[in-house]
């Protein structure tokens, strides 16, 4: 009887193996385990056939409302973007998917060259010198970048713009509890003036509300104060915006999910981290380098490993081991397929749709775009008050729209006491979706005005 459908051992195999080992039962090998703890009943459900588990998961999945099944304007670090059909076909090939960290380069060149190409493509996109082969996701990448700055400057104060994504800021705060860093949050506009004594200034561009930021000014201020400038960025924005490397940024971090990786309700994603050459020895994570083999053929290996935990242990630049390699390979495939024009087109479409939509929504009674200054493919919208209390506008509207099956994000208390909507567009946003959003907000707001005037 096989309870594990993936075990290749028959009863005959097991008998033969036991005999070779010279025992009657595996329990003879478990003498080190306290008797009272041996072979507990776990209370887990019994096994299933593949057919049974497939239909079980289909029924669970049917209890979700997928992004594509209705008007959808959520975004931020995670974006609903078009994934070319060739991306999963290539990235999910068993030879990539079921390999592990390329410890043995002679039989891992597929992984190593693909990651080297990922590093190169990210450097092209961001105009940076070095990109590592991945961090877990955006939030922890920002935290690791802050740690880097602390090591480089020997300072323990991290100054962060409050227009950085809430989830990123919160993750940085958690990480900061380790080395007991001081975290200061100030508005982007005040960032430059807060550089004194800071290890780094962390700015996001485009920011959480899609706002475009004069990063150069902030970088200059940071450098003047002996601090580093860390920019949180988004991949597609760099196709159209001057890249961090041209703005004086020292470390670039961000969420790489929009580069062909499914949204999957939170992960696995791709933590992007790139920096200047001077900082490479303080960089966390793996990095692949080019070399040659004994016969003079080009080849690639994991390199600069003296930064890493398996060699430096407590002195390592990070504890990261398993990373998000397949996501990096996926991003490389995505960028290779999209090319400069495809990537730019996707970015342009988001920008164009966001501006068209902002124009329409801003014209509705009681509504106004509340991103200050220029915005990119996402904007904040102030909406009429629907209820009393600190969340009577944006959050109340978000909930009212949910009833109409329209999904938008509310700033809620994530961004100070601001109570607006955040609306993200990408190349996937359809005219029909935009019409639904405009119509829904209009009618919700109208119905409220009635009740008000009715009094």
């Amino acid at each position, binding site marked *: 009887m096989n309870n594990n459908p993936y075990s290749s051992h028959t009863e005959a195999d097991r008998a033969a193996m036991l005999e070779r080992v010279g025992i009657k039962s595996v329990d003879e090998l478990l003498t080190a385990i306290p008797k009272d703890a041996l072979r507990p009943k776990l209370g887990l459900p019994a096994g299933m056939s593949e057919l049974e*588990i497939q239909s079980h998961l289909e029924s669970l*999945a049917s209890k979700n409302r997928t992004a594509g099944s209705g008007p959808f304007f959520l975004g931020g670090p995670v974006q609903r973007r078009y994934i*070319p059909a060739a991306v999963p076909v290539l990235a999910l090939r068993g030879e990539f*998917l079921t390999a592990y960290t390329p410890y043995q380069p002679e039989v891992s*060149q597929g992984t190593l060259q693909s990651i080297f190409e990922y590093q190169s493509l990210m450097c092209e996109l961001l105009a940076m010198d070095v990109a590592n082969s991945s961090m*877990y996701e955006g939030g922890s990448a920002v935290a690791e970048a802050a740690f880097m700055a602390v090591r480089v400057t020997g300072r323990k104060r991290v100054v962060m713009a409050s227009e950085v994504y809430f989830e990123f800021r919160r993750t940085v705060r958690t990480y900061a509890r380790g080395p007991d860093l001081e975290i200061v949050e100030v508005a982007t506009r005040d960032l430059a003036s807060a550089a004194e004594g800071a290890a780094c200034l962390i700015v996001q561009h485009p920011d959480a509300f899609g706002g475009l930021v004069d990063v150069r000014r902030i970088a200059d201020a940071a450098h003047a104060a002996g601090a580093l400038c860390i920019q949180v960025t988004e991949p597609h924005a760099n196709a159209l915006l001057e890249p961090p490397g041209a703005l004086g940024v020292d470390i670039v971090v961000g969420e790489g999910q929009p580069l062909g990786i499914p949204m999957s*309700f939170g*992960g696995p994603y791709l933590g992007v981290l790139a920096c200047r050459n001077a900082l490479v020895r303080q960089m966390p994570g793996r990095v692949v380098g080019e070399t040659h083999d004994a016969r003079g053929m080009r080849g690639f290996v994991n390199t600069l490993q003296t930064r890493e935990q398996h060699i430096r242990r407590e002195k390592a630049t990070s504890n990261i*081991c398993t990373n998000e390699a397949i996501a990096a390979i996926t991003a490389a495939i995505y960028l290779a397929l999209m090319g400069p024009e495809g990537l730019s087109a996707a970015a342009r479409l988001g920008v164009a749709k966001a501006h068209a939509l902002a124009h329409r929504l801003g014209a509705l009674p009681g509504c106004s775009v509340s991103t200050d200054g220029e915005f990119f493919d996402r904007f904040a919208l102030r909406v009429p008050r629907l209820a009393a209390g600190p969340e009577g506008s944006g959050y109340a509207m978000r909930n009212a729209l949910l009833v109409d099956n329209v999904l938008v994000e509310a700033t809620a208390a994530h961004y100070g006491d601001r109570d607006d909507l955040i609306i993200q567009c990408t190349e996937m946003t359809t005219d029909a979706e935009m019409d639904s959003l405009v119509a829904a907000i209009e009618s919700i707001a109208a119905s409220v005005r009635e009740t008000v005037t009715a009094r």
Partner: protein
Amino acid sequence: MTLRTQMIPDSGVKTAVPALEPLLVEIHEEGRAGRHVRGGEEAQIPAAFARQMPLGLPELTEPQVVRHFTHLAQLNYSVDTGMYPLGSCTMKYNPKINDRVASLFADLHPKQPQSTVQGALTLLAELEVMLAKLTGMDAVTLQPAAGAQAEFTAILMFKAYHQKRGEGAKRHRVIVPDTAHGTNPASAAMCGFEVTTVKSDAHGNIDLASLKTALGDDVVGLMLTNPNTLGLFEERLREVCDAVHAVGGLVYGDGANMNALLGVARPGDLGFDCIHINVHKTFSTPHGAGGPGAGPLCVKEPLRPFLPKPWIVRDDQGRYHLDTARDDQPPAGLGDSIGRVRTFLGNFGVLVRAYTYMRTLGEEGLAEASNDAILAANYLLAQLRDSYDVAFDRPCMHEFVLSAARQKKLGVSALDIGKALIDEGFHPPTVYFPLVVPEALMIEPTETEPRETLDAFAAAMIRIAEKAKTDPASVKAAPKNAPLARLDEVHAARYPKLKWQRPT
């Protein structure tokens, strides 16, 4: 074992230096493009922000990209192609059904309102319960992206725990055995703690005497892997845990080797205060050429308040919610929680696979998996013990560590033996870890390798041991039958070339 020779189909692309496959940048030609997405010409970018730098991404067509990555893929050794006995990594078979069902959840955004993701939340909540039962713990967080992040999360929780009890100031040392994986000390250091290393005893256990001398009221806790990285079950585990608890310290369980314990023993019954699980090892999720993984952390009741938020809670109508729905209070509002360690709830796509695997095997299947894994390791050990030194000669759990010390005297190192295995058609085992074993060869066959494959692997190892005596040079010259010969890693580190040259 058969050698395959094959011409790599000729794309006519010239490479700067001899290479198996050109770089994308070498395939690039100006004007080439696909048409995956187009339009948006009406978009306007303010001049002050518009990109001035050329966007030097290579221009390629889909046919070229498909061939490029198909060629690259074929250069990889993988679980789908052969036995991959990488110790401590549990390279078991990755069921394809897990990948298929994961795609059912691909189109869900992590910020969706909870009412629209009840299926996903249900799955996560059920997974937490299953993991708690499996490990004998009381509460679980699914946030950590991998084992190392689970370690960091746990040590942060230890710190918060001690702070809460007013002992934060005095406790600043974390104890790790000399057999510990590098991530353990690294994680402790990231939490601002000192690391005290304790040696192992003659039986491959942590040395209890040395541990006791190392212990004191300045100790945060002990990080212990069990079975340890020698593949051995700690023989005096409870005494070890009691000693740590006696000084007010906590015991962290590194669960990377959980594949030995499914249904065999619950860490919660053995004295651990918490344990992480590498689902990419134990629960068969694909390692993805280096990642992703997922590192759920399972804890005892006293640590629950410190778990990362948000938590998934079930209301009385059986609907699931995130307790700090919008997680929007100032840190204080998080209660004792250390807060989130990542942007969203966890590596969901990996967790779906783990859930699917656990439900597929069920209680009996999981127990059988560990049984078979332990049996397979001991079966291999029995065949190899005469040809290689055995680090610590007692029954192993799901993996074991050989030493090539004997071969080293003949000039053949553990690395050489690994490379020779490539010529025999196998992926090498983990080498030079754990550090306490000279010329370590750490071998984990897993339960999914057929017996004939185990026999073939043993035969290959024995052939190599023979060759080390009769013809050491040939072993040192390996691999001859791989896409590449040995690579010059020193050159790579000395003259770092970390990206290609931009097309000109």
